């Protein structure tokens, strides 16, 4: 079923270090042969540009953690109907051939649709917002509907999750209509990427979002102090209050920068736990650098996944440990088992093992318990793989499912697990009966802690982009892997958004809002500090004293 892959880097996926891949020159963007190798306990990626010389960048801060993650590398199915276009892009000139091309390995797990380039903030590390006089990119509702339809037609597994992003999406007056369109097009998960300001200061807006069909808000939140979070420290408690009233879940998204907020990870987790009725998860994103940056500055600010996890261990007093985190494609053993039982292709998360990692934590009798403390995760995944292989070799599905039923309790430590969770039943229902109703309860009683390290031109690895499953839909019909979209914005993000934008003057003429279309948020710090929501929000660490 799989389309033929021609990529030069495919065969080295999952190979031992050192392995060959391809990258780009951060200066001129020429594609180059590259090597990922062990550099005294760290993993680096290096390549040499004929014009700009050698670039040797940290890729992962720990070789041993990299090798552990590599153990979960999974084979992805890819798409049957890749959209190579009239220009017959074959992927041989990756990342300039998107897409998605026939070389791409993953279907779209999360579709991103940028709905505006306007933002009411001007964060120093973000370059993606329009300034006075710039063209404004705001695809029409019809264009957005077509992007959604396009991703929904992926074969054999249609896209089912979309994130609306920007700029700041809530600046659009028709955002509620756009969310309804996503639901009409059959998307089960609709996520909104926002700073939360509009929600904080417009009573009822969170409820309107929820009613329209938003599943989760994805809210940037960089820390719990004025220094670490100049963006929305004061406003976040109000955003949470509004979401609490509306029953709308939040995932916090801290961008991690060494020397800025790397001392605040434990506090961010503590803050999330104290609001766990609203906050469903945290997705830490180690910074990816935009534009040119000297090596000394990159070294001063770069954090990679293993060092972020080490910081979490230190700042949670060892409660959350590196071994609690698993790379994202580890869940492919679950997908693989369900596919074998159902004989039908399933939604899978087969991205590159170096892209991200995650765990779940629970609160039990006032204490934090990571999920691997009471589930033998590796043992369960290994057992599922064995059952799937047995079925593929002709064994009875009924007998193999019965083996799972008999064995499942042995992977669970009943003494350590949260008492309210009937895990054996939940797992069996999900894996064998495909009844996912109890998973909602699982998510509500737990906190997801994830890491996603998007690439920049300095640590760019083609092997990763070929397996990317977070994609941008563009109004011209192409679908672009997240890191290609942002590592070569001049070919995708900026180029297409320029083609599909309107001039500043034209936008202003048709703009119906009361403020300027580019009005910036003005903070009233004294008033916010006086707000009871803020007074109770931060303060002493509760779970990791």
């Amino acid at each position: 079923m799989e389309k033929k892959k021609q990529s030069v880097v495919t065969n080295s996926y999952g190979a031992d270090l050192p392995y060959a891949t391809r990258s780009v020159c951060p200066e001129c963007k020429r594609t180059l042969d590259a090597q990922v190798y062990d550099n005294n306990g760290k993993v680096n990626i290096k390549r040499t540009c004929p014009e700009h010389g050698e670039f040797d960048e940290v890729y992962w801060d720990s070789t041993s953690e990299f090798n552990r993650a590599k153990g979960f590398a999974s084979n992805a199915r890819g798409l049957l109907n890749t959209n190579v276009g009239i220009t017959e892009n074959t992927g041989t000139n990756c990342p300039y051939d998107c897409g998605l091309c026939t070389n791409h390995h993953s279907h779209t797990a999360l579709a991103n649709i940028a709905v505006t380039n306007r933002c009411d903030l001007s964060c120093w590390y973000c370059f993606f917002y329009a300034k006075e006089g710039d063209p404004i990119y705001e695809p029409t509702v019809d264009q957005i509907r077509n992007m959604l339809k396009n991703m929904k037609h992926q074969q054999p597994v249609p896209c089912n999750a979309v994130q609306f992003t920007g700029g700041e999406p809530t600046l659009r007056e028709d955002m509620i209509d756009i969310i309804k369109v996503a639901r009409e097009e059959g998307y089960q998960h609709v996520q909104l990427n926002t700073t939360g300001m509009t929600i904080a200061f417009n009573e009822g807006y969170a409820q309107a979002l929820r009613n329209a069909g938003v599943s989760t808000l994805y809210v940037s939140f960089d820390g719990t102090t004025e220094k670490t979070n100049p963006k929305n420290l004061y406003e976040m408690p109000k955003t949470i209050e509004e979401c609490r009233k509306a029953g709308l879940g939040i995932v916090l998204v801290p961008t991690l920068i060494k020397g800025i907020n790397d001392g605040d990870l434990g506090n961010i987790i503590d803050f999330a736990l104290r609001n766990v009725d609203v906050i469903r998860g945290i997705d830490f994103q180690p910074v990816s650098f935009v534009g040119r940056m000297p090596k000394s500055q990159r070294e001063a600010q770069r954090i990679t996944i293993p060092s972020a996890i080490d910081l979490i261990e230190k700042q949670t007093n060892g409660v959350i440990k590196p071994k609690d985190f698993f790379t994202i494609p580890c869940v492919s053993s679950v997908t693989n088992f369900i596919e074998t039982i159902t004989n039908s292709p399933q939604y899978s998360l087969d991205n590159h093992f170096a892209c991200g990692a995650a765990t779940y934590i629970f609160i039990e009798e006032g204490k934090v318990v990571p999920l691997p403390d009471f589930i033998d995760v590796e043992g369960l995944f290994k057992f599922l793989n064995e059952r799937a292989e047995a079925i593929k070799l002709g064994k009875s599905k009924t007998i193999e499912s019965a083996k799972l039923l008999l064995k499942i309790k042995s992977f669970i430590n009943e003494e350590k697990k949260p008492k309210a969770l009937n895990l054996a039943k939940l797992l069996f229902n999900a894996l064998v009966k495909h009844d996912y109703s109890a998973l909602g309860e699982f998510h509500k009683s737990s906190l997801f802690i994830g890491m996603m390290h998007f690439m920049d031109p300095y640590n760019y690895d083609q092997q990763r982009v070929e397996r990317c499953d977070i994609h941008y839909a563009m109004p011209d019909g192409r679908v672009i892997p997240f890191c290609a979209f942002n590592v070569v914005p001049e070919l995708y993000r900026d180029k297409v958004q320029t083609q599909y934008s309107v001039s500043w003057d034209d936008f202003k003429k048709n703009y119906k809002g009361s403020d300027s279309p580019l009005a910036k948020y003005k903070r009233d710090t004294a008033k916010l500090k006086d707000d009871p929501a803020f007074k109770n929000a931060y303060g002493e660490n509760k779970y990791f004293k």
Partner: protein
Amino acid sequence: MKEWFETKFGSAPYKEVSIVKFSFEADSHEDTAFKQYTLLLDAGVIQGHLEFSTKKGILIFETNANPKEILSKELTSVTIDSEETIAYEKVMESNNMFV
């Protein structure tokens, strides 16, 4: 005021575009990819691909662009094999997965 054209994929910024097929010479796969990159940077080029194995390329240009001039700026030896004007909607149709 920018003109928009209705298509079955929503409104589009072009009614027609030029599709140009050409042959070129290149020293290596890497060189070809870089030439594709630099060609795509040109505002007059909408999308395209250069294939090293066949030394053939296809680029889609805005109708007011000068393909010959743009191509000769980046490629030392290039022969235009065909040039035709097509509806931009056809490009969108080929990009989309649901047709």
